[in-house]
Structure formats: structure tokens, C-alpha cells
């Protein structure tokens, strides 16, 4: 057994990567994804086809897009459980503004995204400037925004349960186009968003501030960071992500409905936590969350295809995965377990020599 930090003679960038806080965890997630591919691929060779995987991923885009930005919120020590409601609200605003108010579809989309940003800002304001617990505010927000979605849908001449459809082709083309006849445009958009999130979180001053606010808001405040604004801005970002998701999902399904966001709240939190984000704040990575979201989607796609698991039972493996991961991390970060592993390591090296 070697020391886990690399030898100094390894190249500098490699060493920095390896000793980085989230790199090892991301490696574990990559291994998890590979293992899923191998297991599902062996069980059913149909699994290993990119178009099929992309098609299944399109249904899960809600939590792919949103969870990357909810990571920001969780790093500051908050939580956001209102995103799914905002997705639905965005979708129905697009539909109603386009069909019943005769707006251009792109103007309608912009309006809807602006509303979603405002929703995020409102909740963020209550959390950051009024000092209310994030969980309660976003819980109230999830009721409020889904309720607003329902109210907006009553403005329309179409029955709420049917959804508004018949959008122009240019709007649908947003998600029907495939780059190289293989990769859907939504995936490219996801990669773009992920890159933006990565640069913002890990390569910019703003990102450092987000982490510092999560580790110790008082210290951040004393070192001249406007910690309230930083914490509010993360909610704005997650609102923006929810708005973009709403536009993409509406285009993809071709219908605007107020419950479009579905019930992905728990899945979003699962993706963040599985991606290595600490729910108490101060730790997390955008890449980790994205990898976790991918592994969850593979699980949701592979289990029904390869083992005939009914789609309704998919909560079980995801729940088990979450519990196993958090219990495992708790066990391995426990000082007594680490000491025990150290003793074991010494014993084996002695026996070896």
C-alpha cells in the first residue's frame, strides 16, 4: 500500500490534479459509470448504443441542467428544492405568452427565463437578506411557483391538463437538431453550461468567494466579501438554470405544461450529494455533480432495459446508491476507521518485509 499523495517526482500538473479536493471522488464516479456500462453492457448488448443512451438522457435533462447549478447553492450551505416548480412555471409562461398573448416564441422564452431568474432572486433575497432557513424558503417557493404555474395556465384558452402545443418548427429545431447526426443539441448545451459552471466555480474569483461563504460566512464577511450577495446570486444562477431547462424541455416535448418539471427534486439533491457536495456547505464540484447525474441516468436507463426492472421501482436502486455512498463516506472519514486502516497497512508491510 502506497501513500495516497503522489511522489514529488510526478509531473506537477498531475500531482496538483490528484491532490485536488474532488479529483479522487470524480475518479470514483468515473469508475462507477464504467462499471455501470460494463455490467449493463454484458447483461444486454443493446445498452451500449450512444443514440439510445442520448435518447434516455433527454428525459432526464431537467436534473442534469439544474443539479449542476444547485451545487452552487449547496456549496454556500443552502439548499434549493424549488427548481422543478420553476421549470414548470417557465414552460407554461412560454406557452401562454406565445399562444394567448401572441408573442414571438423567442421573446416568450426570454420573458419566461427572466421570470425564472426573478423567482430565484426572490427566494435568494429571503434566504440571504432576511436570514430565513433556505429549506423553508425554497419549500414555500416550490408551493408558490407551482401554484403560479397553475394560475398562469388558467389564463390560457387551452385546458390545463392538455398542455399547449403546436409550436413553430424553428423552436422545436432547438432540440431536434443533431450534431454529426449523433449528438443532440441538448447535450452540447449541457456541455456548454457545465463548462461555464466549471469556469465560474473553480477558475474564477466568484467561485472562490462561493466556497469561502460556504466554509465560514462570518470570516468571508470580515475579509471584505459581500457574503449576502454571493449567497443570493447562487439562487439566481439556479433559477436561471431552471429557466433554461424549462425552455429546452418545452421545445423537446413540444408541449407547455405547468407540471413539466416533474418530481425531480429528490433526484437533483441525490446528484449533488453523490457528486461530492457537502450539504453543510464549503465543498463540492460542478464536474462531480455532472458525473453523478450521468451515473444516475445510466442506472435509470439500464435497470429496466437489462434486468426488466419496472420503471416505477427505480427509486430503490437510486436510494440504495445514495445511502451506500453516504454511509461509506461517513465510515471512511471516521478517525477510528482511518487509524485501523493505518495499523492494518503497517502490519501488512511488516509481514511483507
Amino acid at each position, binding site marked *: 500500500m502506497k501513500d495516497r499523495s503522489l511522489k514529488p517526482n510526478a509531473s506537477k500538473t498531475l500531482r496538483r490534479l490528484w491532490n485536488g479536493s474532488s479529483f479522487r471522488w470524480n475518479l470514483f464516479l468515473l469508475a462507477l459509470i464504467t462499471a455501470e456500462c460494463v455490467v449493463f453492457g454484458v447483461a444486454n448488448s443493446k445498452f451500449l448504443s450512444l443514440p439510445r443512451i442520448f435518447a434516455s438522457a433527454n428525459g432526464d435533462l431537467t436534473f442534469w441542467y439544474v443539479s449542476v447549478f444547485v451545487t452552487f447553492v449547496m456549496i454556500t450551505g443552502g439548499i434549493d428544492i424549488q427548481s422543478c416548480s420553476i421549470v414548470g412555471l417557465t414552460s407554461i409562461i412560454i406557452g401562454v405568452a406565445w399562444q394567448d398573448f401572441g408573442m414571438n416564441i423567442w421573446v416568450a422564452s426570454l420573458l419566461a427565463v427572466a421570470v425564472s431568474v426573478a423567482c430565484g432572486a426572490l427566494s435568494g433575497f429571503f434566504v440571504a437578506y432576511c436570514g430565513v432557513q433556505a429549506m*423553508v424558503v425554497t419549500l414555500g417557493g416550490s*408551493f408558490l411557483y407551482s401554484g403560479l404555474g397553475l394560475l398562469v395556465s*388558467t389564463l390560457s384558452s387551452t385546458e390545463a391538463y392538455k398542455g399547449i402545443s403546436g409550436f413553430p418548427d424553428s423552436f422545436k429545431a432547438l432540440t431536434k437538431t443533431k450534431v454529426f447526426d449523433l449528438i443532440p443539441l441538448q447535450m452540447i448545451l449541457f456541455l456548454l453550461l457545465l463548462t461555464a459552471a466549471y469556469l465560474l466555480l473553480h477558475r474564477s474569483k466568484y467561485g472562490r468567494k462561493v466556497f469561502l461563504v460556504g466554509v465560514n460566512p462570518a470570516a468571508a464577511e470580515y475579509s471584505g466579501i459581500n457574503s449576502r450577495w454571493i449567497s443570493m446570486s447562487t439562487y439566481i444562477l439556479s433559477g436561471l438554470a431552471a429557466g433554461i431547462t424549462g425552455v429546452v424541455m418545452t421545445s423537446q416535448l413540444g408541449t407547455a405544461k405547468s407540471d413539466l418539471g416533474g418530481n425531480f427534486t429528490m433526484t437533483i439533491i441525490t446528484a449533488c450529494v453523490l457528486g461530492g457536495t457537502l450539504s453543510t456547505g464549503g465543498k463540492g464540484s460542478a464536474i462531480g455533480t455532472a458525473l453523478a447525474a450521468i451515473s444516475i441516468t445510466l442506472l435509470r436507463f439500464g435497470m429496466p432495459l437489462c434486468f426488466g426492472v*419496472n420503471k416505477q421501482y427505480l427509486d*430503490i436502486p437510486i436510494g440504495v446508491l*445514495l445511502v451506500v455512498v453516504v454511509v461509506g463516506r461517513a465510515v471512511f472519514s471516521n478517525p477510528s476507521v482511518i487509524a485501523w486502516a493505518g495499523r492494518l497497512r503497517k502490519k501488512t508491510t511488516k509481514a511483507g518485509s
Partner: protein
Amino acid sequence: MNAVKKLIKAREFTSFLFLAVLFLAVGLINPAFLSLENISACFNSSVVYTLIAVGMAFAIFIGEIDVSVGSTMGLSAAVAGTMIQNHSNWLLAFAVGILIGVVVGLINGWGVAVMKIPSLIFTLGTNGILRGLMYLQVGVEQVNSLPKEFKDMSSRTLLGNFTVYYCCAVLLTVCIHLLLTRTRRGRYFIAVGDNAGGAELVGIPATRTKVTAYLICGVLSAAAGILFASRIGIVTSLSGNGYEMKAVAACVLGGISLSGGVGSVIGAGIGAVIMASISYLLVFMGFSSNYDNAITGVILITIVVADALMQYRAAVNNRHARLAARTSAALGGKGAAGQ
């Protein structure tokens, strides 16, 4: 006189006042609402929420949260419902339902208190597992033909228009409140939630108290599941979905602080009545049920923001008073030394 003052100062009194004002306001808009039947219907329909909210209150008292209550309730409703539908002994079915709550509570307590995993995340995981198990159970056997006697139990009344179920729930809540405030072990919960480290230092078994809180939470949600099956008479794979959020909302409306250590189960009960009556009240105010969620959200956010601002002002005032006292003491001391 002292007792009255104490009552008015209590946090749950504000919630009670809010409920009364809510009822009166609806009565002003539509006088038809102010009849004993309508008001008792509001209370009766809150019985499932009451039990879950009281259970959730325990998890919140100790400074944690339990988002698996909805699925615990659903699973217990599905299993007990299936057994009763197949003509097994009712008591046995109830016992199995409650046993599910015990097991879930112990697992949650183990994860949160012993393994020290953040409660939101751990109970989120158990929530997923339980929901899946419930799909398995309901998928095998539909619960839609419960015997008539079992369903009729829910409409039996005791005091005037109040159902037996609601009377039992109120009695239980009051008993729990007395146990929590009048006994030594009962006060452990608040102490652990207020300051877990301090509680441990003065010799309170914090871990055991946390596990007990989760145990009670699981048992009460399982009991709520059985009442749910009896009241609604049908259990689908979606039963109980979203109840965890409603229970948290009920607790917050009842004046329980999510940071732990503040509030009472009576408040949770009152909050549950508010949550359950909103959709009922809307009908009398002439709104469609479309407004249900939006109004719940507005009420919830308004109450917590107002509460937070009031607490902030109180803290600032306290600090000013303390500083003023300190400066005057220092000045007084100097004056004495100079003489």
C-alpha cells in the same frame, strides 16, 4: 393571570390566532362557512397531517429533518391495507404497519445519530428506498376494496361532529406535549436540539435521544398511514407523496423553528389544521382549487420571513440593552473609583 400571560406569549398562540383570524375572515366573506359542520370538517380532515406533523416535530426539535415520512406513511398504508383487504386480523395488520414505522425510524436514527450523516441526505435515501418498496407492494396487489367496516371507522363521531380519529389524535398530541414539557426525559429532546454538544456535556444521552426522536417520528407516520387507508379507502402508488413537505410546512406554521430546540407539538397540530383547511377555505371564498399551492406558498413564506425579521429585531434590541447595561456599569464603577 400569570398563566394567561404565558399562554399569550407562547409561539403556538400566534398560530392559533392566525387560524382563528383565517376562519373569521372566511366567515365574513361567506357567512355560510361559520357552521359547526364546516369548522369541524376542517379539523377532522387534518387528522393525517396532525400525526405526521407531530412526528416531524420530533425530528425538527432535535435539529434534524425527516423527509421519509411520506413514504413511511404510504408503505404502512399499503401493507396494512393489503392485509385488511385479505381479511387478516385487524390488530395484526395494525401491528405490522406500526412495525414498519419502528424499523424505518430505527434505520433513520442509526444513520443520522450514530453514523452522523446529514439528516436531509440520509432520509432522502431511505425515502427513495421506501417509495420503491411501496411500488413493489402496490404493484403486486391493488388496495382498492377495503372492507366497509374499516372505512366506516373513519366517519364515526365522538364529541359532537368530531371524529373518533381526530379526538384520539388531539388526545395523543396533548399527552405528548405534557410528556415533553413535564418530564425529565421529555425535555431532553429540546435540550439536544438547542445545543447538542452542551446537552452531551451535562450528561444527556444525545445519540439515544436522537434515535428515539426518529423512532417516534416513524411510528407516528406509520399510524398516520393506517388512518389514511381508513379515511380515503384506497391506496395508490402515489399515496403519501409530498406529505413530507406538507408536514414541514405545518410545523413551520405552528411556530417550530427548523434550527431545532424551539416550539411545541401543539403548534404542529395547529399548523396541520391550517394546512388541511386551506383548500377547504378556498372553496368558501369562491376561488378555484388552482389557488391552493400559490396561497400555501405565500402564507408559508410570509410567516417565516416575518418570524425571522422579528427574531432579528429582538436580537438587536437585546444586544443594545446589554451594551447599555455594560457601559452604565463601567461608568458607575469609574465614578466610584474616582471618589
